[in-house]
């Protein structure tokens, strides 16, 4: 089990690094997908099969498809790649890498000097997940539901389009009429 965990973790890290370094956005998204799938694998190994499969269904199966969908429509080419190269000068990297270095140092300290928790103490089955979601964390679920409802209403409002007058003669007539009113 241990060896499987470390292999998956290595795949996750490498895939995530490749996400950041790819210039082609579709390739980057595909690596992000690999990263998400290996995250799911990690969840599974740590004893949370329900969370693992939800990660695949929701993130890898739905959200990433929408991402790729949008990127495909944008039809990004050589020019955007050039533009991105121009934006990403060496100077830009200083701030983020400093912050990341602090986090990494902290992580090393934690890993090396603290009691390591044995991973996968027990498997959490779907029933337990449901009980804690709709028991202890009820308020969180309800707040998330309200937020999602607001998002759906907003999307429906933006997506609503006015009824077009499809016939060109009718359209002209209507415009003339409007001009006359003005």
């Amino acid at each position, binding site marked *: 089990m241990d060896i499987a965990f470390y292999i998956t973790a290595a795949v996750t890290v490498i895939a995530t690094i490749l996400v950041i370094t790819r210039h082609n956005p*579709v390739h980057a998204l595909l690596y992000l997908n690999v990263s998400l799938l290996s995250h799911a694998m990690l969840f599974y190994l740590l004893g949370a099969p*329900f969370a693992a*499969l939800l990660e*695949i*269904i929701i993130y890898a*199966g739905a959200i990433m498809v929408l991402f790729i969908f949008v990127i*495909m429509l944008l039809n990004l080419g050589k020019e955007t790649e050039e533009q991105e190269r121009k934006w990403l000068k060496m100077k830009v990297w200083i701030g983020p890498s400093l912050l990341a270095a602090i986090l990494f140092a902290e992580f090393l300290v934690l890993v090396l000097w603290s009691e390591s928790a044995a991973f996968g103490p027990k498997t959490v089955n*779907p029933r337990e997940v449901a009980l804690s979601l709709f028991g202890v964390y009820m308020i969180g679920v309800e707040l998330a539901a309200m937020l999602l409802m607001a998002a759906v209403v907003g999307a429906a409002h933006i997506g609503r389009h006015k009824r077009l007058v499809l016939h060109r003669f009718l359209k002209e007539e209507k415009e003339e009429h409007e001009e006359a009113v003005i």
Partner: protein
Amino acid sequence: MNEVFRYLLMIVVMLFTLTTIAAWLIWLERRMLALWQDRYGPNRAGPFGLLIVAADTIKLFFKEDWIPPFAEKTIFVIAPAIVAAAVLLSFVVVPFAPGILVADLNIGLLFFLAMSSLGVYSIVLGGWASNNKYSLLGALRGASQMISYEVFMGLSLMGVVMLSGSFRLTDIVMAQKDHWFVVTQPVGFILFLIAGIAETHRLPFDIPEAESELVAGFHSEYSGMKFGMFFIGEYLGITLVSAMVVTIFFGGWLGPFLPPLVWFALKTFVFIVLFILLRASLPRPRYDQLMEYGWKIILPVALLNLLITGAFALLKG
């Protein structure tokens, strides 16, 4: 060691059987379509034209494996493999008969949903990597269609999960000892069947291919065995959805007199033929009609079904 060997053997046998069935379905579909359209269909090679499958496969293998120079090479090659892999992975959780399944996961149903949601990538990536406007249009349609119909697919199954109290597929089958779930969940069954047809993008929901408008949709640029993979993936998908319908709504392997495996195969065969009959009889809707139908009719019905099932389950305690 013995246990491991048993599983390996089962996996190999299953792979072999499934790919053979998928190939044979091509013959079955052509013969059945011919029957319903009052003609003979392929009847020359071998008895009843059965060897047409072998002839087709040999033809596909000997075709030039052409990758268009304007295509995105790596993704173009990966895309057809994804669909076959995703569908074959789903078969891991299908209980064919007691003892004849690869993994009895306690989240089997979710595993099936996860794998079927990954199948979208082959359409999306194949269409995008071809670098052809018809392929891209097919990919866009495929992505939106499959994402929308996945929602109802999940929702339509939750009623069954409520009644059986488990995501494990063997538990769902065993919960149908007294009566099949199609009796208590008729709405769920119809919604799942519709979503299943849309997931496998078969007629009448073959919008991503739509050969009368988009050449061949997302696989316009594919030829040879890469096209063959898409083809096999589609037939494997039909087998998978039929097997899942049988497992979840029609009592799986349960049945009197005959051995369990035979019951399972018989029931699955009926649904496969239903899929073919649908292709022979229904026209293809327009793309916007399909989306409207999904979001404005099926989604509310699925939610209502869930609500009513929940109320009944609560009343029964």
